[in-house]
């Protein structure tokens, strides 16, 4: 009934707004080399299969997995590509896990690679192209093109997150200062992480609140950047993992759940998710993944969390929806230091998506960092021993969530 899977390594390339010194395959190669460097006993020939993914419309290159095959070391080996928008990285990681747990003959060690070089193309065009097919129906309902493009401009990723932010803010009764505190937390963490993009060691709440609004309540200083970057993760079987590294990280639960899309809805028919911050998909995915991993008290049993939060309000919301804090209490946890590096539940010590966002790679960087924190090899390592951690991903129109639960013990409940 499926094999227990372990993560033995994870690697990153340097993230920046414009990695003008490398092209896409070279960028990918950097992350793979960083990943393999951490497992000296393993060569590229020992890898049996590959899983990869990015969002092709963002770079303007179709089928990038074909022209970067050699740079991945995947020539003449099984290669699979998955793309699911914002959660691409999370889905690639889950596909890597599936590949190993399936127990196919000759496939034990799988390299999962996710990447995005946003400086090559236009992300907003890519986003619009994914939304236009859904929205164009409004044209037939008597909404003229001008209003349609206005809705589009207000309905892109920031747009939908702004709705979510006002809902969360009115529910939790918090101010913009609480959002800025989350941003400061992330950016200062990023300063201690060599591969992060927006590294701001001295950022203050006042500086964030001094930037203009992009869409109320989100200010320019609160938004995630657009980065170039790549991430690689190495999955293998329980037996092989023990020879490869000192502390293998076992994947005990995975889930990828979609709820009804918020704000726009399909076919222009609106959304039944009248509260975009309700996030039933996130709750359901945590329920599934925790039950696989045998976690009944997430708040007690999870020591470290990496959540996908391009916007600060989402970080607060996810932590509550994934069962780590009680509803509406997350802002207090940032105030009293629970989520700090030496706190009870350190969160996003890599700087999170708020500091580094290479879209296709972001959702994989979350489980990758969470795994390295258990191994004790993370770049901004928490001082306490991490036994169990989670890596979360988000995408779609506020509706798709991926989750990976990892631990230093093979505690998976199903055998």
């Amino acid at each position, binding site marked *: 009934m499926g094999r227990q899977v372990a993560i033995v390594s994870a690697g990153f390339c340097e993230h920046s707004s414009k990695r003008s010194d490398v092209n896409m395959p070279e960028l990918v190669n950097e992350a793979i080399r960083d990943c393999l460097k951490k497992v000296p006993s393993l060569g590229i020939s020992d890898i049996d299969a590959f899983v990869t993914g990015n969002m092709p419309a963002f770079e303007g290159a179709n089928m990038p997995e074909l022209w970067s095959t050699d740079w991945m070391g995947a020539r003449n080996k099984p290669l699979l590509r998955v793309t699911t928008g914002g959660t691409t990285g999370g889905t690639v990681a889950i596909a890597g896990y599936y590949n190993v747990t399936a127990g196919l003959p000759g496939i034990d060690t799988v390299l999962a690679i996710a990447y995005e070089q946003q400086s090559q193309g236009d992300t907003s065009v890519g986003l619009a192209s994914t939304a236009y097919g859904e929205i164009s129906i409004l044209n037939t309902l008597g909404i003229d093109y001008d209003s349609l493009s206005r809705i589009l401009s207000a309905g892109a990723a920031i*747009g939908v997150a702004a709705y979510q932010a006002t809902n969360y803010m009115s529910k939790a009764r918090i101010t913009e200062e609480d959002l800025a505190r989350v941003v400061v937390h992330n950016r200062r963490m990023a300063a201690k992480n060599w591969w992060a993009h927006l590294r701001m060691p001295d950022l203050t709440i006042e500086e964030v609140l001094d930037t203009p609004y992009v869409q109320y309540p989100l200010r320019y200083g609160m938004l995630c950047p657009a980065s170039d970057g790549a991430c690689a993760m190495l999955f293998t079987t329980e037996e092989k993992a023990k020879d490869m590294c000192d502390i293998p990280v076992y994947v005990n639960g995975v889930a990828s759940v979609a709820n009804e899309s918020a704000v726009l809805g399909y076919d222009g028919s609106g959304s039944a998710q009248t509260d975009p911050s309700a996030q039933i998909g996130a709750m359901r995915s945590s329920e599934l993944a925790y039950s696989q991993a045998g976690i009944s008290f997430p708040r007690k049993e999870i020591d470290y969390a990496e959540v996908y939060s391009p916007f600060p309000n989402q970080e607060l919301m996810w932590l509550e929806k994934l069962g780590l804090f009680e509803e509406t209490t997350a802002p207090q946890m940032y105030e009293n230091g629970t989520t700090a590096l030496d706190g009870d539940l350190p969160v996003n010590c890599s700087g999170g998506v708020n500091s580094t966002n290479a879209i296709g790679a972001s959702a994989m960087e979350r489980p990758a960092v969470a795994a390295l924190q258990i191994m004790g090899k993370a770049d901004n390592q928490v001082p306490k021993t991490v036994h169990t951690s989670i890596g979360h991903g988000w995408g779609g129109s506020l509706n798709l969530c991926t989750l990976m639960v990892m631990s230093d013990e093979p505690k998976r409940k199903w055998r």
Partner: protein
Amino acid sequence: MSKLTQRKSLDYIKKDYVRTRTMPGSWYLSSYKFRFNITHHQPMLEKLKEKKLIANQCSGCNRVFFPPRLVCGQCLVKPDRWVDIRDTARVATYAIAYLKNPDTGQVEEKPMILVQHDGADTCSIAELAPGINVKDTYIGMPIKAHWKENATGGLMDIEYYDPIPDDAKDIE
């Protein structure tokens, strides 16, 4: 007001990278034909001409959809019942967009709202009356559709939503 969209960036540790060869190029997308089934919209569009709103209801879960839906995602059945709904609604959620007015070139604050009509279970994107102070917008604000003089049978027949007095009381 133009200060509203001024990009003021925060300082961060930057690193310069060598610039290698770059080839400029563009991706001209062809024209596409997106296919939709709009039969389920027709009864609603007809009623809009009379300045009345109807929605369809799923017989599985009794949820009321406005605008109408082709399929209920929860039950996987076609909603087959038509119900009347009111033209009063509430603000389900909102955000304030900063948009450039094409005529004056000025950046204006504009609340973008999702409205949930009284009697419907879904919400959709809409606009608030011009002139309304954005600071007064809140979640749960009661509003009423403002109809165009001559309704033509399209969603744009509701030009925008006017706020109406909120008689809700705080729970003691």
